[in-house]
């Protein structure tokens, strides 16, 4: 079993002194469905932000596909195509007023040719069931629709590991099932999914591994 992402004894203090991570360790292996639970402010989002080098720990180490994270530009580029991160609030991620253009941003950054980018946008849109929203302006979408567009924007990069922060909140039951099915497909293809959530039902029903965060530490 290959470990895709490994957090090793991380300590992180936000500027201003809040201790968000206090010796957090966790491993996400290929083919795993993992749910990360924890009270508000327990450090879930902070942990996810370490996985692709957005934050750099004050102590400890992050490894992606076995390699310790290299925080130089080139290293980060490699890691960010392997680890996809979907954020808690889609309005923070959607930067373009055009849905299609927003989804194309990630694949464009991978340096693919335009036809390949078009194919990926179409594929991701179809997967997330936002194909009919491609020509709509971003600001005319509902919250659940925005969440699915944000997810499509990350899936279009075909990450190995998908880490999602609360993406299921605000989805209707139908869209919820659909997004869970997308996660399953990713896992079936040898990827891994980690969901930070407050959804206990999902933890019980769907997850292979349930991790719980408490005051900056993880219990599995």
């Amino acid at each position, binding site marked *: 079993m290959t470990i895709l992402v490994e957090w090793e004894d991380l300590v992180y203090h936000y500027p201003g002194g809040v201790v968000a991570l206090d010796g957090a360790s966790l491993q996400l292996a290929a083919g795993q469905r993992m749910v990360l639970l924890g009270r508000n402010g327990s450090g879930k989002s902070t942990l996810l*932000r370490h996985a*692709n080098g*957005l934050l750099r720990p004050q102590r400890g180490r992050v490894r992606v596909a076995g390699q310790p994270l290299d925080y130089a530009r080139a290293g*980060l*580029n490699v890691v*960010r*195509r392997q680890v*996809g*991160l979907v*954020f808690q*609030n889609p*309005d*923070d*991620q*959607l*930067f*373009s*007023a*055009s849905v*299609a*253009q*927003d989804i*194309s*941003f*990630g694949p*464009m*950054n*991978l340096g693919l040719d*335009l036809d390949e*980018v*078009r194919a990926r*946008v179409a594929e991701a849109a179809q997967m997330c069931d936002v194909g009919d929203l491609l*020509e*709509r*302006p*971003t*600001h*005319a979408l509902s919250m659940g629709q925005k969440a699915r567009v944000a997810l499509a*924007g*990350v899936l279009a*990069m075909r990450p190995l590991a998908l880490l999602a922060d609360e993406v299921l909140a605000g989805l209707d039951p139908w869209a919820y099932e659909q997004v869970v099915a997308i996660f399953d497909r990713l896992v079936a293809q040898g990827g891994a999914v980690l969901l930070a959530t407050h959804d206990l039902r999902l933890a019980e029903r769907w997850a292979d591994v349930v991790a719980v965060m408490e005051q900056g530490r993880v219990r599995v």
Partner: protein
Amino acid sequence: MQVIDRYAYANAIRQVDPAQKGGLALVALLLCLLLDHPLVSGLSIGWMLGLAVGWARLPGRVVVQALVAQALFLLASTLSVALSLSWGGVAPRGWAVQIGSLWLSSSPAALQHALVLVARALGSAAALNFLILTTPLVDLIDLLRRLRTPEVLIDLMTLTYRAIFVLLESLERMRVAQEARLGYCNPHRAMQSSALLISQLFIESYRRSQRLQESLESRGFQGTLRVLPNTYRHDVWAWRLGAVMVASLVLARLTR
């Protein structure tokens, strides 16, 4: 703004290349300014309304309403050109009305001058209306990118346009939250609440910019916002129609 946006996305020529729509509007605008004659402006207004209703299938009511609103505004602001005020015992030339020791006067020349001004401005406004009611800003930005506008400007426009809607939304949310807690029950409280709202909005936009930065980085941001260019349709006969329009405007000027 929301209204403009709605029509910009839902009209019959949404998929037409913005270069074509922009080209037509720009030509009409330039001719209005260069030929500078009320007849040309009037004709150009007619053309733009015709294209908006006939080609883009916009509701005529909306297009006319927009123009009327602009016309009223223009009339109000050219009032000072058409009319003049003076003191003193002698009546100014032209038409004049006396109010106490004030003379309110006008003359054929002044009226003519005002008419030319209004016509020119209204002709240009009609051309711009046609463009913004048929072309979403994302397409205009796309066009600017094709015209090799510096990336920094393009990125700024993209982010600003999106931020407007996000901030409007959070503004509305915060206002409702304050309202629900009686934040606007009297003028004094209303003042305090508004001040709080403004400062919160500043903090909010700062935080948002940070989170946006993070999410862009996560998707491999390389310093510019590279996105897929749109694909558009070309209407060949629209070019022909454009040529006819130019000819008619020039002819109208020559016959005067």
